[in-house]
């Protein structure tokens, strides 16, 4: 670290790190989108509507936790879609069958998510399978498990507890946003204040360098995938709370946005750079954009195209690699 970076306040733009600049740009972009929203439809920026948009953003945000952690190590997690779906159908299914008390079911399902992450990690570390392939295969396997377990029709509803976490209010504040804030703080602290967090960044920056500095790379990676699986499991449960019940394919719509929000939030897809604060901005940007396009009554075709163009624009703005020539 240079002395300049140790000075806490009033840093000039040019002295900031790439990540800090990206995150500031992302939040600025989010604010611009909110302003555009107000232009498009009056009342868009009313406190109530902003809260609603934040609540909707939180779901991509939850899914983005696991993806952020994995991308920071230089990996990628494609098993997110059906891991969420699996936790959703197992949660509603097990609760409906009264095998165990609801809170026990919730713990078991969340640990199941961690177990899936553990298997991902084992495949990547001990069998040397590229993360993309390992998690792609895992997604397929989980899809099979979901189909076989539900026999095509998931049963049961979201438990009241989960429903409250997503839909409840304390005064004017949605409980969901408090949950998001708590999870964000947990992830933030883990990434920047714990030894594990520092190791995670180190591995993402250089596997060889980490190994030579005495970091157990394998254990760090397996730990990362386990924690990511755990958070994705929680995301699946919360999403079920939002819908009220579980259904097949409910995680599909979140797979690619989960990657997009991490990258829009300034993280590097090759690892080592990024944090969850950026992912939050990414989640808000994607959600506000989708909301505006919906209000404008755009056909799905135009929405898809704009969605892609915005991701490309964000990438061109701050996702570029250094010149190799």
């Amino acid at each position, binding site marked *: 670290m240079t002395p300049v970076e140790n000075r806490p306040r009033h840093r000039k733009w040019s002295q900031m790190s790439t990540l800090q600049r990206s995150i500031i740009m992302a939040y600025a972009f989010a604010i611009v989108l909110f302003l555009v929203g107000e232009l498009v439809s009056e009342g868009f920026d009313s406190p109530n509507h902003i809260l609603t948009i934040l609540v909707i953003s939180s779901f991509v945000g939850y899914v983005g936790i696991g993806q952020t952690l994995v991308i920071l190590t230089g990996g990628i997690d494609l098993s997110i879609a059906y891991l969420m779906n699996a936790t959703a159908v197992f949660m509603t299914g097990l609760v409906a069958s009264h095998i165990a008390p609801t809170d026990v079911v919730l713990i078991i399902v969340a640990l199941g998510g961690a177990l899936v992450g553990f298997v991902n990690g084992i495949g990547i570390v001990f069998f040397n399978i590229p993360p993309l392939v390992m998690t792609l295969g895992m997604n397929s*396997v989980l899809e099979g498990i979901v189909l076989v377990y539900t*026999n095509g029709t998931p049963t049961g509803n979201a438990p009241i507890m989960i429903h409250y976490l997503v839909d409840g209010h304390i005064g004017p504040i949605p409980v969901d946003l408090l949950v998001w804030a708590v999870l964000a703080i947990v992830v933030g602290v883990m990434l920047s204040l714990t030894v594990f967090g520092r190791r995670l960044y180190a591995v993402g920056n250089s596997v060889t360098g980490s190994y030579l500095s005495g970091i157990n790379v394998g254990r760090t990676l397996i730990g990362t995938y386990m924690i990511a699986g755990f958070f994705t499991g929680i995301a699946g449960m919360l999403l079920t709370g939002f819908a009220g019940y579980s259904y097949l394919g409910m995680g599909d719509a979140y797979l690619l946005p989960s990657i997009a929000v991490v990258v829009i939030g300034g993280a590097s897809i090759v690892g080592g750079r990024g944090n969850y604060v950026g992912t939050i901005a990414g989640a808000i940007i994607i959600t506000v954009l989708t909301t505006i396009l919906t209000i404008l009554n755009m056909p*799905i*075709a135009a929405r898809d*195209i704009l969605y892609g*163009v915005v991701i490309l624009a964000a990438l061109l703005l701050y996702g570029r690699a250094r010149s190799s020539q």
Partner: protein
Amino acid sequence: MVNSRHSTSWTLGKDIPTLLSFMVLAILLAVNAAVDSHFFTGFSLLTFFTDAIPLVLVAIGQFAVILTGGIDLSVGSTVSIANTFVAMYMVQKLGSMVEVSLLMILLGIVAGMVNGIVIHYGRIQPILVTLATMSIYEGVALLILPSPGGSVPTSLTSALTGALMDIPIAVIIMAFLVVLWFWARRTRFVLHLVSIGSDESAARMNGVRVGVIKIAAYGLSGFFAALSGLYLAAQTTSGDPNIGAPLTLLSIAAVVIGGVRLSGGRGSLLGVMAGALILSILGSIMYFAGVSSYYQDLFQGLILLVAVAISSYRRLRNRYMQT
């Protein structure tokens, strides 16, 4: 590149990952023959190969990109563009069929080259660029045809999915692709693809025009995706803006099962074709064995993981456990 002579080899004895994919395919064919006694009769084989062709074609395009160390997540959407384009504009006239086919192929190549240009000149990771264009191209397909429908000339269907003197057209296409590979694998272009995947900066220093070759690789991917969309249109006799979506991840799986290294620089088209056939045959086996189709994804995933685990595990010098 450890040994350039074998990097695109078809002498299977030395190419263990490709050999492995052929062994898996042979076992699955035997299983299929066991559960379906009519498998080696004309109709079953015709159906099997005809059903497999779309994935084979997309996987070949994906293979060209993965050889360079890239990845193309937009292939599925490009398939949809071609598919809807054909269903929307092709009519039962020879002139129209040729014209629309050529335009469609051009569209596919342009879509692919746009990926390559943004990746190369924008200096953005391939997975991110093609993630964005996947969404854009999906939108384009929806613009062409908002909901499933349209129609395809019947002569196109019979020309592409029928048989010529009892040999399924699909088999002829595959045989042609194999012959094409035997010629192409020694061409400068394919060697350049491989050299970029092995070590991009070394390739550049040795005078490989990395940008041009990469853009061509993505263009090739779009080309094959367009052909796949055309074949799907002939097969289903209509268009569907979402038809290509599942093919994206399946094509990556087929390439990887075929023993191609995901980081680029090594692989054989024969392995890729075997990988695509392996993924296609699973559905057929389950149908004839009376197993619920719900198990298909499970087995596809397991085969992918086991195949990759076996071929990666041999490399004892593990990235994460260097000794």
